[in-house]
């Protein structure tokens, strides 16, 4: 940031405090987006960022909240720089707070670089096409909604559904077939409880991966507005690890709904015109600046794969947070309360799930030639079986033809045997094997989505009767 003078000025001109915002009068030579240091009457210092400046006033959002700020003694100093974070390879294995300061007992991070947390948009021309299949060991993902390196695939959860369990399982089991361990996990918590955070720590500890994880923790009782910075700090660290140190980085962001609520809080305080459900109209763009930081860059062997987790309020997928997320991310994994109640674990509802990059990661040489066909067939048959369930509820099973009864059975087995797998780590071969076993429940003519040659070739896998 270019700056005219070296003299720093302390402003004692706070004239208005509203929610997370303070209004500073008569600012001079300050730039849009720069960081402010706020010193409270009791000597405590907080950080903030400029959201709007004019000749008379600067609006500053305070990350740690405005409690205790007065309009008399409080001083504000502008640093001349937009928010930055110190990054280093030594961050691996450390627990940091929501803006990247050590939270564990360890020493301060000795920076290798100091980077702007906002990042910059990747030139679409420099992006490399995601194409490597990541085996998560979970059938519903591997077979039906394949994750590839450089993808952003969120988990849409509901309150009380085991999204954390699923995310931890993915983080533990994820591997690219035929490659060594050159990975790191960046974990950003926004407004989750201590219990949830410690669950993740335990999981990583058990799998021995704790040394490869960077934690950014903004817990439920930490300042709300800090959550705006947390995912950006985490992604800046992830970019550094991926593109400078060539690591394969998996970023878990949880819970994005809390992030969006913080965004709404600021927007309301600024008296902006609200969009749907009070969220600001620019939330799409704002979320995009987070999610779009996943990907691969030509000439770099590292990559960033994102798994954001969000809670759908009232399990409503059309709520603005899941809705806008779904428009930006490359698919979604949706958890279902019905399946959870039935004891299906993980309770992934296959129908609304999607992986947009699936086709880039599957097929001969990557998974298997019949993968696409198998996935399509599973979907078509399961969807039909689900329709029949509704019909059965009204007219009874007796009114169905034999074939339709087979479809019903197929849908049940699909949930019990294919989706529900518990803690087991399934290879892609096992997953496809289970799928072919399920096809045994249906006559060959019903397998329209599968090429005849594959039916011929993989028929041996079909155990008829199921």
């Amino acid at each position, binding site marked *: 940031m270019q700056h005219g003078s070296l003299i720093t000025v302390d402003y004692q001109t706070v004239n208005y405090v509203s929610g997370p915002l303070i209004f500073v009068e008569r600012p001079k030579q300050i730039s849009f*987006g720069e960081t402010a240091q706020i010193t409270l009457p009791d000597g405590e210092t907080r950080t903030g960022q400029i959201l709007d400046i004019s000749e008379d006033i600067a609006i500053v959002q305070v990350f740690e909240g405005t409690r205790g700020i007065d309009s008399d003694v409080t001083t504000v100093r502008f640093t001349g720089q937009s928010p930055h974070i110190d990054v280093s390879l030594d961050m691996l294995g450390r627990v940091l707070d929501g803006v990247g300061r050590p939270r564990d007992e360890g020493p301060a991070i000795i920076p290798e670089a100091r980077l702007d947390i906002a990042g910059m948009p990747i*030139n679409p021309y420099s992006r490399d096409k995601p194409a490597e299949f990541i085996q998560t060991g979970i059938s519903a993902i591997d077979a039906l909604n394949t994750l590839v390196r450089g993808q952003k695939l969120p988990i849409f959860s509901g309150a009380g559904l085991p999204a954390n369990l699923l995310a931890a399982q993915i983080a533990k089991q994820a591997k690219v077939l035929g490659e060594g361990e050159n990975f790191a996990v960046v974990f950003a918590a926004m407004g989750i409880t201590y219990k949830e955070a410690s669950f993740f720590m335990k999981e990583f500890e058990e799998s021995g991966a704790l040394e490869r994880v960077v934690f950014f923790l903004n817990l439920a009782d930490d300042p709300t507005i800090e959550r705006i910075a947390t995912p950006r700090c985490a992604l800046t660290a992830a970019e550094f690890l991926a593109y400078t140190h060539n690591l394969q980085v998996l970023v878990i962001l949880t819970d994005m709904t809390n992030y969006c609520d913080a965004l709404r809080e600021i927007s309301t305080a600024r008296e902006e015109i609200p969009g749907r459900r009070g969220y600001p109209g620019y939330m799409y763009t704002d979320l995009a600046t987070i999610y779009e930081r996943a990907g691969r860059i030509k000439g770099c062997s590292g990559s960033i794969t994102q798994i954001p987790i969000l809670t759908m309020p009232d399990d409503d997928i059309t709520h603005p947070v899941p*809705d806008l997320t779904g428009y930006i991310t490359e698919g979604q994994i949706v958890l279902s309360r019905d399946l959870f109640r039935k004891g299906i674990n993980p309770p992934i509802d296959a129908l609304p799930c999607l992986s947009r990059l699936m086709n880039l990661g599957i097929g001969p040489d990557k998974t298997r030639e019949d993968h696409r066909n198998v996935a399509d067939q599973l979907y078509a048959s399961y969807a039909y079986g689900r329709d029949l369930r509704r019909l059965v509820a009204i007219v009874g099973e007796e009114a169905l033809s034999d074939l339709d009864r087979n479809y019903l059975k197929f849908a049940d087995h699909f949930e019990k045997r294919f989706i529900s797998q518990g803690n087991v780590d399934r290879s892609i071969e096992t997953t496809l094997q289970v799928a072919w076993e399920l096809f045994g429940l249906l006559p060959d003519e019903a397998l329209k989505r599968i090429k005849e040659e594959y039916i011929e070739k993989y028929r041996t896998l079909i155990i008829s009767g199921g």
Partner: protein
Amino acid sequence: MITGTIARISGPVITAKKMTGSRMYDVVSVGSAALPGEIIRLEGDEAVIQVYEDTTGLLIHEPVKNTGVPLSVELGPGLLASIYDGVQRPLPALFAKSGNYIQRGIMVPGLDREKKWVFTPVKKPGEMVSQGDVIGTVQEFHLVHFIMVPPGISGEIKTITSGEYTVTEPVCVLADGTQIPMLQRWPVRKGRPFVKRLDPEVPLLTGQRVFDTMFPLVKGGTAMIPGGFGTGKTVSEQTLAKWADTQVVVYIGCGERGNEMTDVLTEFPELTDPRTGYPLIERTIMIANTSNMPVAAREASIYTGITIAEYYRDMGYDVALLADSTSRWGEALREVSGRLEEMPGEEGYPAYLATRLAAFYERAGRVNCAGTEEKTGSVTIIGAVSPPGGDFSEPITQNTLRIAGTFWALDANLAYRRHYPSVNWIRSYSLYLEDVEDWFSETVARDWYQFRGRAMYLLQKEVELQEIVQLVGPDALPDKEKVVLEVARIIREDFLQQSAYSDDDSFCPLEKQYWMLKVIIWYYDAVRAAMRRGVPVRQLLSISARSEIARMKEQKDPDRIKALSDKVWEQTENLEVQTCSTAA
């Protein structure tokens, strides 16, 4: 030059003082970093400016310079196979200058200044020319790029010589001294002139059965594809960009995913146009302003795209413009409007949303191009719409519905069961059916319209019957109606469904479409005829020709499909003989 100073900064919108004399939509250079921006409001000596780049780091009192020209694009040879950002900066050039990330304040011209093109004149000195007249040609890949007299210029040619030129060197000089280079500029917010608008009559073919046969689009028409996330908007847009039978395709990735643009960038050079055999990239111009790139440039990207499309239209070509997604453009408009503190209309969108949308879509059309020679060209706009929550009652969908001629409604329930393209056949419509009826009758078959109508009738009937089935179960239906359900299912699964990823089925020629539909309808007729003779439905529905119908999509040999239409009759007739003999 008017120079003012920054008085306020609020995200992508800044206010500058001392800007007296500025005009609306003038391009300005903001701050010492020279960020490009555009004036969107004037109040006294203050100008409100939307900035096409991130404003972080700008200071109050930094200078703002008015360039005095409106936002324009550069038009000339070299556009094809390019990839631009929203304000026509070539992304490869930005990459060369600033690496993997897009840095701010870099200006790169839209057209390469170094490259030389071979110019062949078609006019001679002494001839009179006026706006739109072709003075010469340049070979741009496999397309003949006509060099035209820019709008507003006319006169007698003094010199014109063939040779190799860069885009800025004059290729022709008029008697009054006007120099005409190959490059011309045109302000993006103003449509390029033409002589006369024509009625559309030729369909825009896409090789997609549900589009071509069921809900056809015309060259010069407009179409909208609304759908919630995951319904396949982007795949549909990309499929259309691949297979549309136009000479030029402009693809605008407006506020969408970076990885998707990469997908297009890596895939199109490898794919060949099924009609010409040349790589698809050589007829494509891409404009990529991904969702994390500056929001004001997203607003401009749509106009940049349509202006380039109009330029090729003026040469007499058919151009398809694909915008994915117009909702993101509308949101950019809303964001800027919010920063201007304008009184919001519905859902926070500005009150002028409908006008802006209409003005954009109306730039589509089939026209008699400017110029003395008779030329017709067309621009077809296909806009994706991303309604929040998949709810079509929101303002962008509703306002677009009032303008678009073809409505391809995507349906999440179809997408969930992997019925792609997930076009809902009940909700969708095409207002161009009558316009293209003659063309189809002459080019494909006289009974095309009739078969299409019957298929639509069966699908409509299916919906009614399904409601009854939900109440009483399928067994309670009379045989006649069971057959309707079965045939409707065949239409849905074996005709409407089409995989964009299948080698044999991603592109379906029109003739094949016609024969596929004909076979299905004939099967229906054959079954009904046999039923009247008393053959049990169960037997009719299990004839071997049915599994062949199910695999017609993958069938490469058109004669096999034609033969199938006879087969269904034979097999149903044979059945009757068998039943009679067993009965006897």
